């Protein structure tokens, strides 16, 4: 079916460099917020990050231990399924390669879990090889609670709901377990370049 032409519609052009914005997305300079419930506020002295599941034993870092790990500065374009994209965002975070270093597992999938009960599933291969981080800083400032602070996943090559806010750990799983949005109508993998927004895309 050819698209319906909207007579008189021009749209806004030229606000994005070609090749940077996936189909159906528009560039925003704001930083919109999408969350399914109230914003949790976990004090740092009660925060920890845990890797559990298909591992010999769970690995756990307190905030101080986590922040003592080597951190990286990341510049990335982010793409929210609600249609906005934000270019050249700057974060600091600990690479998942660093966190997973030395952990033996047969798992091929992961579920990130968060304060407030949020979960999202990501294949393990999408978290390794310099593609994913646990971020604690945005734009040079500590990550604000509304944007997922004290720490959130940063998996910029997938739609941003895969970058779990308020993340507290990763469960490594042998089978793929769809998370919160993935069981509520959203795509299981979420590649923005293939516009994998919803079930059936």
């Amino acid at each position, binding site marked *: 079916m050819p698209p319906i032409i909207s007579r008189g519609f021009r749209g806004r052009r030229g606000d994005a460099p070609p090749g940077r914005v996936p189909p159906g997305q528009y560039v925003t300079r704001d930083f919109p917020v999408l969350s399914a*419930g*109230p914003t949790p506020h976990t004090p740092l002295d009660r925060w920890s990050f845990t890797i559990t599941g298909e591992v010999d034993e769970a690995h756990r870092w307190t905030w101080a231990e986590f922040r003592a790990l080597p951190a990286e500065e990341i510049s990335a374009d982010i793409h929210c399924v609600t249609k906005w994209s934000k270019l050249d965002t700057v974060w600091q975070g600990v690479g998942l390669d660093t966190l997973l270093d030395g952990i033996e597992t047969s798992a091929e999938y992961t579920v990130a879990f968060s304060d407030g009960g949020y979960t999202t599933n990501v294949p393990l291969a999408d978290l390794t090889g310099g593609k994913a981080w646990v971020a604690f800083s945005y734009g040079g400032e500590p990550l604000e609670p509304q944007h997922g602070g004290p720490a959130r996943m940063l998996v910029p090559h997938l739609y941003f709901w895969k970058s779990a806010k308020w993340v507290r750990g990763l469960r490594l799983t042998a089978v793929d377990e769809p998370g919160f949005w993935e069981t509520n109508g959203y795509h299981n993998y979420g590649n923005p370049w293939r516009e994998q927004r919803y079930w059936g895309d």
Partner: protein
Amino acid sequence: MTWQVADVVGVVAETPHVKTIMFDVPGWPGHRAGQHVDVRLTADDGYQAERSYSIASAPDGTRVELTVVRIGDGEVSPYLTGQLRPGDQIELRGPVGGYFVWEPPLGGPLLVAGGSGVAPLMAMIRLRAAAGSDVETRLLLSSRGWDDIIYRDELQRLNGNGLTVVHTLTASQPPGWTGYARRVDTDMLAEVGPGPAERPRVYVCGPTPFVEAVAEALVHLGHQPQHIKTERFGPMGS
């Protein structure tokens, strides 16, 4: 999920800045109150823009209504609110979302909306009315002024039979106004109720700072965070 052709069958001005556009979508699979759709516009040279809008209408055959605020410098909303006429066609796909939904016989909800955040909550209120439900339901709606209240007359008609509609007008009030005249806060939520002991299902929708403040106040009052469902739009602000 495939794009479908939607025929514009009506356009209604809700307030000076807000219009409801009524569509007939042949083959529409039906929707649940609280879900949204994606809308796609295509220019004559093939350029496309997409946005998401909540569905404001109760499930009703192939009818879908969207309530759209005209954003002055927006890309899509000025076209939807300014150009669309009955007989026009656009593309949409949906419905989307299985979380921010309510329908009878779920327990009576507490609905809290800021401005056009009332749209998905209106779908719930309309569904409740269409189903003949008298389940205890409260809507607290924050608007800037009397003329900015979306669905004002219809809400007045539906008020009663278990539905309580409470307005707060944050920027200007008509002469003789005796209702709330401030932003939604903890005291207001406590007065409007129901309290956490009644374990209502709470739905909050509006601009991000509004939803942040309301959700925080509800948690402060003792509502369980997992009973508070939120839908936010726009940036956090300053």
